[in-house]
């Protein structure tokens, strides 16, 4: 049953979900939850908070299913929009910056621990650099370069023009490159 439904587009699955099909929930969760979590984690720089946001965004998606217009907004774009709003709310409420020491530390005795440490250090550095970007730049850079959305999709999710997206992503990427330029060696890249 899941294999058959797996062929369907997200918006068709939303209609099936509204009709009480539990497999639709499983497939939509498999497709969309990783994106919501990744988006929230990179913007917030905090895994636990990102999980709360991702769960809340998915709950709103479930609640929206009953009135979902097939052929209208894509569920994934709709979800990115919800995550963007939820993360902005949290950032504004807390007014905090993300520190390097907030990312998860891998256990040292596991195989490949050194590689994981390097990787964790890189993610922490990326999160810290992202945290210094203005909110809109951060959202645009995450959606464009990490989530891989096209500019019109980002424009839809952030409710801005495509030109504004292009400007935000260009400035954001430049600022990130500058922020990380001095850490190439520390991050394990050859200088």
């Amino acid at each position, binding site marked *: 049953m899941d294999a058959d439904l797996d062929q369907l587009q997200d918006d068709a699955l939303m209609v099936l979900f509204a009709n009480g099909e*539990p497999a639709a929930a499983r497939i939509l969760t498999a497709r969309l*939850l*990783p994106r919501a*979590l990744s988006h929230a984690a*990179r913007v917030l720089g905090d895994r636990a908070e990102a999980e709360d946001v991702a769960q809340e965004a998915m709950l709103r998606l479930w*609640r929206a*299913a009953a009135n979902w217009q097939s052929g209208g907004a894509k569920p994934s774009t709709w979800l990115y929009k919800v995550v963007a709003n939820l993360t902005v709310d949290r950032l504004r409420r807390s007014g905090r910056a993300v520190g390097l020491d907030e990312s998860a530390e891998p256990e040292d005795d596991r195989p490949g621990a050194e590689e994981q440490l390097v990787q964790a250090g890189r993610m922490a550095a990326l999160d810290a650099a992202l945290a210094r970007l203005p909110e809109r730049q951060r959202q645009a850079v995450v959606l464009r370069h990490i989530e891989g959305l096209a500019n019109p999709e980002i424009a839809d999710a952030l409710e801005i023009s495509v030109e504004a997206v292009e400007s935000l992503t260009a400035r954001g990427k430049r600022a990130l490159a500058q922020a*990380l330029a001095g850490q*190439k060696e520390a991050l394990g890249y050859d200088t």
Partner: protein
Amino acid sequence: MTHELDDLFAAARKAEAPGDDLVARVLADAAAVQAGAATRAAPSGGGWMSGLMSGIGGWFGAGGLVAATTAGLLIGFYAPDTVDTVLGGQLSELGLVTQDDLMPGLAYLLPGEGG
């Protein structure tokens, strides 16, 4: 730094796989929403017109309501003696209408009058 940045983006893309616990919480929310929707769906289906029609007894009831309303309008519009004529003099026989009344058929409602 562009190459390194692209490498960081690629690593970030793979970094956040949801754990089983989060997936379970999300699916539990989904099941709760589906269960709630199933109990709420029945009374709200069909829209306002459907609710209105069932409230007055369906289309058959609506037809009766329209006929009664039309008859009421006609009776109110025409003078009582005309209605009496249409009804074959039944109002006259009951003493409710006389041909020389200024307000035929209403005199019995006034204080001190007959009826």
